[in-house]
């Protein structure tokens, strides 16, 4: 049997997904033995031009991490889709939009203004902004065009498999690579490397009735490692997040941040999470409820930390007219 042909590409993300592959440690040698890495800009050779010249469906699988932020991300998504038999949305950003997706809370103009003008360390008296096209000898320079919104991978191309996580747990990545090599992938559209129940179901902390009078900040105390975070007033995304990560955060005494996304039957992770978090508020008095709710300082960033582009209302409803 010939080697499996693989590609990995990073779009709008942090690069952590690429690096997480190295967490395989020695097993990376087995990957190299069974697979030919034709395109992986982070670690090996292989140019976009080579990729363009391969016949369609030449690659057995492409692992695509990062969200779609600009025209280059979109081009690479379409190109890898065309050249691959299997396209995997790798990690939270490709899966649901991820952390870069929180940019959808602001308009493009607001983002550019903060980055190129308002940050205290920026000196930009001419108020220069990057332009798509710039002429200088010996020719024109082109930058990708920013999209108005960050998108998840499947809003641009058809995705065969989703491997959630920020980054995906290394054992789940290993299982995915084995499945690719052995042609044993589940049917298209499946979320692989994760189960379909909420993380709470696997969590080993003691769980009693949840009634809280105040939300607490992790900076202000050390949570009891044996007791459910929510009972201690710490917002935990476990109730609306699928398990499969092995509860890495909980074991480090940190609440779940929701990177695995919601189970299959949840359409909107943030709304579901909001529902469960609001339910544990122990008050019937509208004024007191208001005061407790005020302690949730950033509901959108907390409940949709990894999934805003996939939400029913993806923010930026107040984008300025252009």
């Amino acid at each position: 049997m010939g080697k499996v042909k693989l590609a990995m590409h990073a779009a709008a993300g942090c690069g952590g997904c690429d690096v997480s592959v190295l967490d395989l440690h020695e097993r990376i040698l087995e990957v190299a033995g069974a697979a030919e890495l034709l395109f992986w800009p982070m670690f090996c050779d292989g140019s976009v031009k080579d990729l363009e010249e391969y016949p369609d469906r030449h690659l057995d699988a492409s692992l695509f991490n990062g969200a779609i932020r600009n025209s280059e991300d979109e081009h690479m998504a379409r190109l890898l889709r065309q050249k691959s038999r299997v396209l995997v949305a790798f990690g939270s950003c490709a899966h649901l939009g991820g952390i870069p997706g929180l940019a959808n809370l602001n308009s493009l103009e607001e983002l550019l203004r903060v980055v190129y003008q308002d940050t205290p360390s920026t000196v930009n008296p001419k108020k220069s902004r990057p332009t798509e096209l710039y002429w200088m000898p010996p020719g024109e320079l082109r930058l990708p065009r920013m999209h108005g919104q960050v998108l998840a991978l499947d809003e641009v191309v058809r995705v065969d498999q989703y491997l959630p996580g920020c980054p995906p747990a290394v054992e789940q990545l290993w299982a995915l690579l084995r499945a690719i090599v052995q042609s044993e992938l589940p049917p298209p559209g499946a979320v692989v490397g994760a189960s379909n129940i909420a993380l709470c179901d696997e969590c080993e902390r003691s769980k009693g009735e949840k009634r809280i009078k105040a939300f607490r900040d992790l900076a202000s105390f050390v949570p009891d490692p044996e007791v459910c975070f929510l009972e201690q007033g710490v917002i935990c995304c476990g109730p609306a997040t699928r398990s499969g990560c092995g509860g890495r955060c909980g074991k480090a005494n940190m609440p779940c941040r929701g990177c695995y996304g919601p189970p299959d039957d949840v359409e909107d992770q943030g709304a579901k999470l909001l529902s469960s978090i609001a339910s544990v508020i122990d008050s019937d008095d509208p004024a007191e409820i208001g005061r407790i709710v005020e302690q949730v300082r950033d509901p959108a960033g907390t409940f949709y930390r990894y999934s805003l582009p996939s939400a029913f209302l993806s923010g930026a409803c107040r984008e300025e007219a252009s």
Partner: protein
Amino acid sequence: MSFEPKILGILCNWCSYAGADLAGTSRRAYAPNLRAVRVMCTGRVEPTFVLKALRSGADGVLIAGCHPGTCHYQSGNHKALRRVTLLKKLLTQLGVEPDRVRIEWVSASEGEQWARVVNELTERIRKLGPFRPLSLLRGTG
């Protein structure tokens, strides 16, 4: 053409749906902009329903249930109140006017109150204008 708000009403079976019925049987005229859906209790109303309604073309959402202390299931309406309070904060962050979502208490004997609530909300949303989230219009091209 003038704007006619489309409002989704989610009404609890025991109080508000009966209240709306009473408004009808008392032949009370009020704004025809609300489409009513009956649920057993406002405690059943998930924030997902509200967001999905807004995404699907509703300009506003009304959740109506029993007065505090009179819930058929004891605390469902309190739960709904907590959720709506937090939901409004989220909506503000998402750039949606929180006034598009309202929670009200209407008992089975308050047909007049029902008509007043629907009229008020309809006028409020008429002033806010149609709800058109840009996330629905976004193109990738």
